Each structure stands twice: as C-alpha cells, then as structure tokens.
C-alpha cells in the first residue's frame, strides 16, 4: 500500500510539471501585455516600461520560464501584479472559504445523492422513483446561477431564514452549498440507482436470496457495497468540479473564494496569481484522485490485493 502511494506520488511530478508548463504557454500565448493593462487608460510609454521592468516581463521568455519553474518548486509564487501582495498570502486568504463551500456541498451531494439513489432503486418504477428521478433531472440541469438567485429569494427575502451573502458562519454556507451541491446530488442519485439495479441482477444476489438472507441484509450489506464502488470515482470528480462551480456560486452569493479570484486574475492577466491557482488546482486534483483510489481498497478487497 505504501509503495503504491509512493508510486502515485512520483507519477504526480510530471503531471504537475506538465500543467505548470501548459499554463505558462497559454498565458504568454494569450494577447495582452500585463504592463500595458496595469497602466490602465493612461498608456504613457515611460510607465509601461517601468512596469515591465518591475514585473520582469522584459526578460527573455525562457528565462522567465525557468525562473518560474524554480520559484514554484521552492514554493515561492511571487507577488501579484495587480496589488504587489505575495500570491501565497492571497491564496491562503481565499482558500478556506472555497474549501468550506466545496466540502459542505460535497457532503450534501453525497448524503442526498446516495439516499435518493437507494430510495429510487428500492421503489423502482413506483411513484417515489419517478419523483426522485424528475427531481434529480432538475438538479442536474438547473443552472447554478438561477438556482442561487431563487434560493436567496425564497429563504432570505421571503422567509428571512438564512443570510444571502458573505462567509464566516455556518448559516452563510447553507444556501451556496445547496446551490452548488444540487448537480452532484442529481448525478449521484441517478448513478447509485443504476448501479444498484445492475448489481441486484447479479447471480450472487440470487444465491444470497436462495440461502435465505433477508432482503434488507442483501441490499445494505451486499448490494450497496458493490454498487457504491463506481460512485466513489464520481464523488472525486464531483468534488473537483465544485471548484469550477464555485466561480458562479461565489459571485451570486458574494462570497470570498478562489473561483472569483482566478476569474479576476485572468481578466487582469495577473500572471503570478493565475499560475499559482492552477498549480493549486492541479495538486488538489491529484490528491483527491489519490484519496479516491486509496478508498477503493477499503471498499473492495480485490483492489487492495492488486496494489499490495
């Protein structure tokens, strides 16, 4: 197991290097000189030159590339072009809020999704099933932006139950987490339902039933354990996808967060901030996928044997 994890970590190095390089190339390929943009409407040449020197943009591209790789490896992401603050400080100030949102909405998606999926499968082709399937279809296809505004109108303006904006307290994360988590919950519900229905057709279930195991035990002890395996991968994907959804959700609910920060940084061509954020996302992706794979081995002994 340890060897497996170490292998995976070694494999992560080229992935990170690759994404660093790709991001560097894309940013520099995009039109727009950051110094010119920082200079604003006043395009005085002396100020643009001053800024280019300050930001190190007048160096040859390969020098910029290797400096950037070397600095990134040492964990030095430099200073934001836009406000000269250390990029690490900015990331750290925004990360907790996005992490809170992503974790709460993933937990919401898992609990709701799996519960609905099981109910849907158990009451297959009955009213409960149809209602759940329609609701999860809504969840998957509803734009987060629209749902967010709808939730604010119902729970904040009309019912005065929950705050519409900001972050800090748990109450403030409920609405955005719901808006963000609904898609994941919908996907999971449909996925869990289908897997259960597939597994339930397997011969071992017939054997279990023939042995006189109760239907309840068959479902919760045997079918579910097998059926949830594919959903685990999806949970990883859903969690990483929350970062993407956070852009919209953070805007609607006026929350702090990485999503909003990256979009602003791209607009301003704040290269150090973009680079650092992409790196964080890449690392995040790798870690989550690793965790998913490790959790596989707990649920499925066959995986454990293979990797050991």
């Amino acid at each position: 197991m340890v060897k497996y994890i170490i292998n995976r970590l070694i494999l992560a190095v080229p992935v990170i290097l690759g994404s660093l390089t790709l991001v560097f190339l894309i940013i520099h390929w995009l039109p727009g000189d950051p110094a010119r943009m920082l200079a604003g409407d006043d395009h005085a040449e002396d100020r643009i030159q001053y800024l280019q020197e300050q930001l190190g943009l007048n160096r040859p591209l390969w020098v910029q590339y290797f400096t950037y790789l070397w600095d990134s490896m040492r964990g030095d992401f430099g200073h934001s072009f836009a406000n000269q603050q250390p990029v690490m400080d900015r990331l750290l100030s925004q990360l907790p809020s996005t992490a809170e949102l992503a974790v709460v909405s993933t937990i919401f998606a898992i609990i709701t999704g799996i519960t609905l999926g099981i109910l849907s499968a158990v009451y297959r082709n009955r009213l409960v099933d149809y209602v759940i399937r329609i609701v999860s279809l809504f969840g998957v296809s509803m734009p987060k932006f629209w749902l967010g505004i709808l939730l604010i109108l119902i729970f904040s303006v009309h019912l005065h139950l929950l705050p519409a904006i900001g972050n800090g307290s748990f109450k403030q994360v409920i609405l955005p987490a719901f808006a963000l988590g609904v898609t994941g919950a919908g996907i999971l519900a449909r996925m869990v339902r289908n897997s259960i229905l597939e597994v339930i057709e397997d011969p071992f279930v017939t054997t279990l039933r023939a042995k006189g195991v109760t239907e309840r035990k068959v479902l919760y002890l045997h079918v579910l354990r097998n059926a949830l395996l594919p959903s685990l991968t999806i949970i990883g994907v859903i969690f990483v996808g929350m970062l993407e959804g956070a852009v919209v959700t953070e805007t609607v609910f006026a929350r702090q967060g990485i999503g909003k920060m990256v979009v602003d940084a791209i607009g301003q061509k704040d290269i150090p901030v973009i680079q650092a954020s992409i790196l964080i996302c890449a690392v995040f992706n790798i870690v989550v996928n690793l965790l998913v794979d490790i959790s596989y081995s707990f649920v499925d002994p066959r995986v454990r044997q293979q990797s050991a």
Partner: protein
Amino acid sequence: MKLSKRSYQSVILILIAIMLVLAGCGNSSSSSGSSADTNSADAGTPTAGGELVWALAGVVTNDILDAHRTGFAPSTRVMRSIYDSLVVELPDHTFGPWLAESWSLSDDKKSYTFKLRQDVKFHDGTPFNAEAVKFNFDRAVDPATQSYLGKNALGPYVSTDVIDEYTVKVNFSSTFAPFLSNVAKVDLGIVSPAAVKKYGETFPQNPVGTGPFKLGKVVPGTELDLVRNEDYNWAPSGSKHQGPAYLEKLTIKYVAEDATRLSVLQSGQADVADIIPPQNLLALRADSGFNVQETELLQHNYSYYFNQNKEPWNDINVRKAVRAAIDLDSAIKTVYLGTAKQAWSPLSPHSLYYTSTVENTWKYDPDFANKTLDELGWVKGDDGIRVKDGKRLSMEFLDAQGNREKRLDLLAVVTQQLKQVGIELKLLTLPAGTVSERSLKGEYDFAGSSQFYGDPSILRQMYSTKGPSGVNNVARTSDPALEDLLEQANAELDSSKRQELYKKIQEYIIENVYSIPTYVLDYTVASSKKVHDITFDSPAWPVFYDAWIKQ
C-alpha cells in the same frame, strides 16, 4: 417504464406545485407599495450611533484603496469616506474650503498657494501639514506609484514648494484650468505620508487618510469595515454638521450581482444598495419601505465612437448615415424603461459648461441614412447588408465588460436598427486583455466607452492626441482644429471664455460625428426608510458623513 393512471396524476400535480412555487418567487421582486418617496426626507434631529451596511455594486478590485492608485468606480465610491481633499466642489461648481482654508493664484497664474488647516490629523495620529501635501502631489506623478488617474489630474505639474508648516505652493509649467476641480476629487485625496512609508507595497490595503471614517477590518475580496474617526472636526463646507460622523460603523459588502444586491436590501441584510437596475428601480420607487436617490453622474456619457483610422468610418458622410440610422430615443425607452434619458452632448447635462445648443441637432432618419449610403455607392447585397467594391458595410464592436448598465441590451436594439439600413454590427465579447491589445492596435470599427470625471477637460482625454491617453483616445481622433480648442480650454482661466471654448468643442464633436452620445446615467442609491441624509459629492459618489440611522 409503465405508469399507472394515478402515478401520472401525482407526477403532474407535483410538477404544477413546483411551477407555482417558482412563479411565486419570480414575482416577489416587484412587490408594490403606494408612496413614491424618492427623497431622503427630513425626519427630525439626527441621532448618532449605529452601523450602516452598504451592499456595494461591484468589487473593490484587490481591495485597493489607495487614492492615487485606482480609478475604478467601486473603489472611488468607498474611498470618499476615507480620504479628504484640499477643497470641495459644490453642486454649482464653485469651490469651498476643506483641508485648505484658502487659496490664491500667482500673478503668472501658474502657481496655486494653499493655506492649510492647522488642526488636522491623519488616522494614524500624524499631523497633516505642508510637507504632507507636497508628498501627495509628488507621489501622484511618480511612475512608481502606478497612478491611474492621479497623474492625469495634475496635468502640467512641476513641483510643490513648502512655504511654511501650513502653506504650500503648487507649480505648473503652464496655466491649468481643471486643477481645483481635480484637486477636489478622491483621485487627489490626501494620504498619510507616514503610512505610505510604513506599509510600502501594502499601503493600498491599509489606507490611512484624514476622512470621517477609517479602516477597521478587511475581509479580502468580500467586505470592508470602516469605523468612525472620533477626532474628525474638519468637514468640508456645505456639510450639514461638524465634528465626527453620526454613524459608528460603515460596513461595505461587495455584491456585484444585481439580483443578490437587491435581495440583501429587501431582506434587511443591508441598509443601502447602489446602482439599481431599471426594472428594480421602478419597483423600489413605488415601494414605501425604501428611499431611492437618483443623482446624475457627472461624466463623459457612454458614447459610441468611430475608429477614425479605419475606412469607411473616416468619412463624415458614413458617420452621419450611421447616426441617422439609430433610433436612440426608442432604444433607450425600451431598455431603460424610462429611467434614463437620451444624451445629446458628450458631457452629462449637469457638467460644468454643458451646452444645450447641441440638443436635437440630429434625429433618427432612416431615409436619410439609406439615401446617403446609396449615394456613396454602398449597395444592398443579397443578405440585406450593403457592399461596396466587394467590401461589406460591417462594423466590429469589442466588449469585455458584459452587460454593465444594460449596455449590451442597448447594443442589441441598435444592431437591429442598423441592420434595417443595411449596416452589420458584430459584437465580439473577448477577455479584457485581448480587448485592450486589439484596441491599442486599432483593430475595431465601433467602440463604446464612458468616463466619470466632473470637469469638461475629460474631453481632452477622450478626443485629443495630446491628452493623457495620447494616440489611444477611443475615437482615434487626430484633428488639429479640435486639439487646438481643447488645449486652449485646458489653459483658459477666464470662466466665460472657457465656457465659450467648451461650447464650441461640444458642437464640433457632434457636428463631426466623432462620437454618438447615448444615454444620461443617474447614479442610484436605494436605502431602507430608517436611513437619512446620504449626500453626494462631485461627480456623484455617495457621502456618508452626514448620514444617520433613526434608532
């Protein structure tokens, strides 16, 4: 999949229920009331204390609150509470004392001498004096400051001399008419020299001024808390009281999303929200639970510019035809629902030296447009778009700002109108960096832009190669006659002569169709009934010094 009849009925019932819930929510934002109170009416004696929560339209980008370093409107609106200016510009465009008690112009009219108040302290306790003023002006023109507007505001600035502890002389290389108006703006607000030295690169996030409020807490990218400056006793002339502000705390939350901003106001999570979209403005005006204040923003109106460096837009007849093809009156009524009126001059109507002589000097006249374009040899092709020498009459419009102030909605209507006479308008929505790069290279035909300012010298920035934006003025105008007028007006200190010059300039710009003014924007502030006496500075940003909450 087989459904029983009963299940069908249930499913349909549930669907209907869901729709009803959704429909109910859709209507909620237009709750109606009876009274149409649009003024912050007198409500007795102001009471001190309390916290006011302001849902700010937009984001203070990177939390930059350095007066000399940012020109973005949301930051500027916030900074008015933190920084004071040497003088204040009153609604009639005259000037009153603020941090300066008096001022005089030298005999050669190139230097201003300011006598400063002697009792003013910065938020960090350091004294405000002549050295501080010198530091501020020198800082605003230093390239290292990355000043966005501060530098433009000082024009032909040469130096500042410290005459004594509380007297400064500001020197220019030539006469500079907009100086007092510029010095009254936040862009030349007075920052604490000690704090700039102490915080260095992080000063923009740690602003220290002399204003009625000082920085409490910053929640990066989300919220700012300003707290009352208890020592404050130097309010500008024109204020309703002296001494510290009434509000104990001013909490500013960045709520860029229109629908959310309205919701936090309506649910009572904010006391004030600004920049209300037209459809909500109508509802709020009719809602007795809220006050709505509407103040004209002094600015260069949002206008469409032709790129003069590109054919066929350098031909005045083509420009006239395009202008005649646009029915701005109906477009503005459709999009702004009667909350905005048509603009006739580049300057907003309450700007200094606005001239009404340009009003109604052109009109929607599709026949004229068609006839002119026919005569110029632009013939309608199969798809209805005109063609000449194999070239289509098509214009590219670059946009990076989205539907701010419903500008893209307006453009959509204009696009349809232009199509009627055979002109194609293509909207290209691109990232800001790409738009900036393409604009610099002149790769566009038609552009839209506005700039808040408050002094007619904004026209030099927008139409002259000698202005601060140089050859990058949006219209790419390079017209010696116009530039000569703009230079004269910039240096002319005699107000009646200056007025005459700006009258000519506005007429000239409209006659030559260098731009097409669109709508006049009112800056709007909606507040709950318990909030009173929010006032406005020049160009129209809110002042919370006199504001108070009825307890």
